[in-house]
């Protein structure tokens, strides 16, 4: 279908000069994701003897990195009107909290770009698109976040366990568990859980009871759980504060009183809610 370009009343009067370009930026943590910026564009009629332009469809794919850093694709559409657009996940299954899309109009396509207009931003999933002319705006830290069950690194013998929030992520630490096995060396160990900002301790939580030599005890921790010392079943519970948010570089780790060189932490599993910080 042909439209005389001068008569078209687009839903949004997004006129682009030939120097403007549309830019998709993705911040992503999920593997195997490909997203496409698609839309409809009506080129301008630039000369009277030119044929009337027709509405065309554009589709530009971007495979983002999985490091939560920005990956971007900028495409010039020419002179004309951007009628509508959407960002679609074409491969992978990111959940809310894993792939964040931003769309804007910029001047130029290479080097230092000049941002001109903001079109929309939101997390996207296979079933949740970001699209205009009336996009919903969802901030980086909005929504329920991605639920992640993480297997932690098993430290060397005699070392504390330590898990850090990755660059570009924001966590809410929900719960977890680990095993601490004491060696034969006689000493009464105490296990505390530390929340720090990478340097300074922000919270020190822990059981008041001791763990003697040659015991393998399971420590569980979770928001709002009651504190409980090691029982006959070698289980202990450490209470976490509710809604504890941790920024990139923050850590949860153990601080073990009288830890011995052959003591061993193992079987470290924890559940977090994760957002992309977008910094």
């Amino acid at each position, binding site marked *: 279908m042909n439209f005389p370009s001068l008569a078209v009343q687009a839903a949004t009067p997004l006129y682009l000069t030939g120097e403007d370009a549309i830019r998709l930026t993705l911040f992503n943590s999920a593997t195997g994701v490909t997203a496409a910026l698609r839309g409809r564009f009506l080129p301008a009629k630039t000369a009277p003897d030119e044929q009337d332009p027709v509405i065309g469809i554009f589709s530009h794919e971007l495979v983002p990195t999985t490091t939560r*850093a920005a990956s971007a694709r900028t495409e010039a559409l020419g002179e004309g009107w951007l009628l509508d657009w959407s960002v679609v996940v074409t491969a992978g299954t990111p959940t809310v909290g894993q792939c964040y899309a931003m769309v804007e109009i910029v001047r130029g396509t290479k080097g230092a770009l000049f941002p001109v207009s903001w079109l929309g931003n939101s997390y996207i999933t296979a079933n949740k698109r970001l699209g205009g002319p009336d996009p919903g705006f969802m901030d980086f830290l909005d929504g329920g976040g991605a639920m992640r069950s*993480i297997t932690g690194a098993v430290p*060397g013998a005699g070392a504390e366990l330590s898990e850090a929030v*990755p660059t*570009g992520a924001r966590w809410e630490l929900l719960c977890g568990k680990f095993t601490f096995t004491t060696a034969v060396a006689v000493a009464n160990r105490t296990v505390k859980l530390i929340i720090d900002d990478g340097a300074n301790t922000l919270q020190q939580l822990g059981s008041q009871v001791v763990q003697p030599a040659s015991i393998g005890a399971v420590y569980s921790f979770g928001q709002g759980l009651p504190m409980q010392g090691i029982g006959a079943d070698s289980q202990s519970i450490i209470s976490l504060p509710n809604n504890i948010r941790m920024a990139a570089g923050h850590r949860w780790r153990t601080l073990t009183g*009288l830890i011995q060189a052959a003591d061993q932490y193992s079987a470290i599993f924890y559940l977090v809610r994760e957002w992309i910080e977008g910094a």
Partner: protein
Amino acid sequence: MRKCLSCGATYEPVLADGMLYFHTCPPFSAPELRKALDAGTVRLTAAQQAALDAAILRDQDKLPAPGTQSQADQVFASFVVVRPGHRDENVDRDKARVARDDDGTLKRGKTDDDVMKAPGAGIVEVVRP
């Protein structure tokens, strides 16, 4: 599975949900710190040494109860000392800006080590126990 040659930790670089795991070495535990101090590979800061000296004096004033941790032990264990040559696989934003193209892919000749905060002593692949 990988083993960190800086701290001895073992971990999977890709988790069960397909997401990347970025290992960061823990700070020294108390026995590790004691060993490193003996070997002269690290030194306590003046503030840490002062806090430790004060705790030792408090212990001398009031001996710790049998089976309990001395104040000096508690203070010593609370020190956060980064191990020399520690590994931090997290992405360094400044390095990444230089090493990656606009679309996020690594430039030719660049590797993940070029964008991580600290490669440390490196890693070796090990068989899962």
